[in-house]
């Protein structure tokens, strides 16, 4: 039955994408309505999936099937560029040009990898041990925030030019959170 509803609802996000594409194609008096209609259809698809497929399963299924349908729609509208025609001046942002210094590279790698990981583990552990609530919920939520915070720490340390600041923050967070967790020491 899930398969049927996932397919039956797929036209809604697709229609939403069509409206958004029409709004994207050019300005006009209808543009705000097209944007509103497009987003409304996307939200409607997710909302309709809740009673039909379940409160978590429905939206998850529609996000997957809807994303695929919209990607196919976007791919179908592919525009062929002339390979011989040279592109005009490139205005795309370029990655910042950093001086290549070996110790900074190694330190940045250490911050993004082990240190951000330890800091994230510390935060997760602090939630699992010190936060209120049922033990298993604290453990799972604490565990779930570890990869998220680690990823965020990685993105930050790899992009922040001030690596000593990143080092200080991550070391401080790791010390505080792990200290709190090990001091309490019991679930």
């Amino acid at each position, binding site marked *: 039955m899930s398969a049927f509803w996932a397919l039956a609802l797929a036209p809604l996000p697709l229609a939403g994408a069509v409206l958004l594409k029409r709004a994207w194609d050019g300005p006009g008096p209808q543009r705000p309505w097209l944007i509103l209609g497009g987003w409304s259809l996307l939200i409607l698809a997710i909302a309709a999936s809740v009673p039909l497929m379940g409160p978590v399963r429905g939206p*998850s299924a529609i996000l*997957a099937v809807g994303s695929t349908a919209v990607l196919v729609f976007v791919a179908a509208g592919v525009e062929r560029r002339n390979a011989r025609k040279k592109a005009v001046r490139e205005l795309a*942002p370029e990655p*910042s040009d950093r001086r290549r210094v070996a110790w900074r590279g190694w330190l940045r790698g250490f911050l993004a990898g082990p240190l951000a990981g330890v800091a994230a583990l510390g935060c997760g552990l602090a939630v699992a041990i010190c936060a209120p609530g049922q033990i298993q919920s604290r453990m799972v939520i604490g565990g*779930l925030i570890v*990869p998220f915070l680690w990823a965020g720490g990685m*993105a930050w340390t790899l*992009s922040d030019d001030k690596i000593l600041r990143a080092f200080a923050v991550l070391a401080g967070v790791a010390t505080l959170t792990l200290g709190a967790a090990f001091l309490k020491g019991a679930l």
Partner: protein
Amino acid sequence: MDASPDKTTPAKTKAAGKPIWPKIPADFVRAMLAGHSALGLAFAALIYLVCFSGSVAVFTQEFGRWEQPQGPVLHAVSPQAVDAAVQATLTKITKPHDLLVRLPTPDHPRLTVHGDDADGGEHTYVADQAGRLVGEARTPWTEFQAELHTVLHLPRAWGGFVVGLTGVALLSSLISGVLSHPRVFKDAFAFRWGGSKRLQEADLHNRVSVWGLPFHLAVSLTGAFLGLTTIIVGVLALATFKGDTAKAYALFRGPTVADDPRPAAKIINVGAALDAIAARYPDARPTYLYVEHPGERGQHAIINVATEGRLSRGETVVVDGEGRILGEVGYESGSLGFRVLSAMTPLHFGWFGGWPVKIAYFLLGLGLTAVTASGVAIWLARRRDKGRPAPRWERLWVAFAWSQPLAYAFSALVSLLSSTPAPVVVWGLATLAACASAAFGTPAGVSKALRQITAGLLALVCVAHGVLQASAMADPIGWGIDAALLATALLLTLTTLPKRSPS
């Protein structure tokens, strides 16, 4: 994501109006792009491998059926048949530590019993409608591809950690990619092909990234969590249980039965246990069960039951040796933590919404694989545009990217034809050989040659499977996968045909 807009159609891009996304300072975007590039390059090969193998792993059950298409195909079995299959297995494996019984489900319409013999050898017996054992399952390629995705064929703890770390790197790339892409809405539909290699790859990279973002976030977060579980639980146990991880895991195990190795008066009746489950959970369907310590006084069954409409692996119920229900773990009825944990695996693999969701996960997974490949291609094209080309890396990356479909197809072919297959060895050698092709020709030539070989191998897999199994193909999925493989081979061949350039 790459923040490269295309400037060949300025009038159209301008017509789209002002972006509704708040303006992000250029320095911030440039810094984020630098971090995004560094991380993407450092983990590119691992992310690519994990994404590609994950896309294939969505169809793990189907590949298992394809490798063993002779069935028997069962849609339901009686509790008595399950008990008969267990008792029959115990005559072949006399003192197993535990037995895993998989009951027929829509994804896996088989009754199988898995256990380890005294020598440590693993056996999976297939049973018929009455519970009679009719053969032994042999699915080496399915096991190979699943293990490649989950642990990269490394020791379990290390493999899980590396895959989890790759998930973290992917999640981090998503965060930095979104933050370094200020035109996320404005360019949402701009998909252009041809012309500048860099702009073409940037369009592919950005469109797939943006529209697949919910899926990318879900699989990277759940994958990182599943991979890092060992280390997270280890540190938690260190802080709270003096390093005893078993105590941490016990919080998620439900009622326990004391270990008592003395012989039991009679072996546990699994049929009676399933009857008790059916009476207690009339709306749920048993999907698999473990028979723990069969024949001992401490014998018991751990039965998984799935309820329609839930994104969950199912509830786990413990039944003692006398067939009494001792209680449930709480994966569906317990606190938020249990329910989130129970949703992780189906959400990660797309095993929750029938075949449309599986196909969507497969395509979105391949999309994420393409995003990874195009990310490196953008970096290489940028170097070339700046007058610092890296031709060896260009050839090697193209060769590596196309090595995986080739190595998968070749390992599947050898698995089908060999009586003692070692798919991981074949896969490793094929990957090395494909990467070695980078020494010859241009990137375009290497790519074309590897796609042609892959197409040929896929067609051979299809033919070999059809010929070997035609007389015993009881499960229609066998023909379905053969047809899909042939279609993929044809599609790949089409991509190698000469293209007409736009006038």
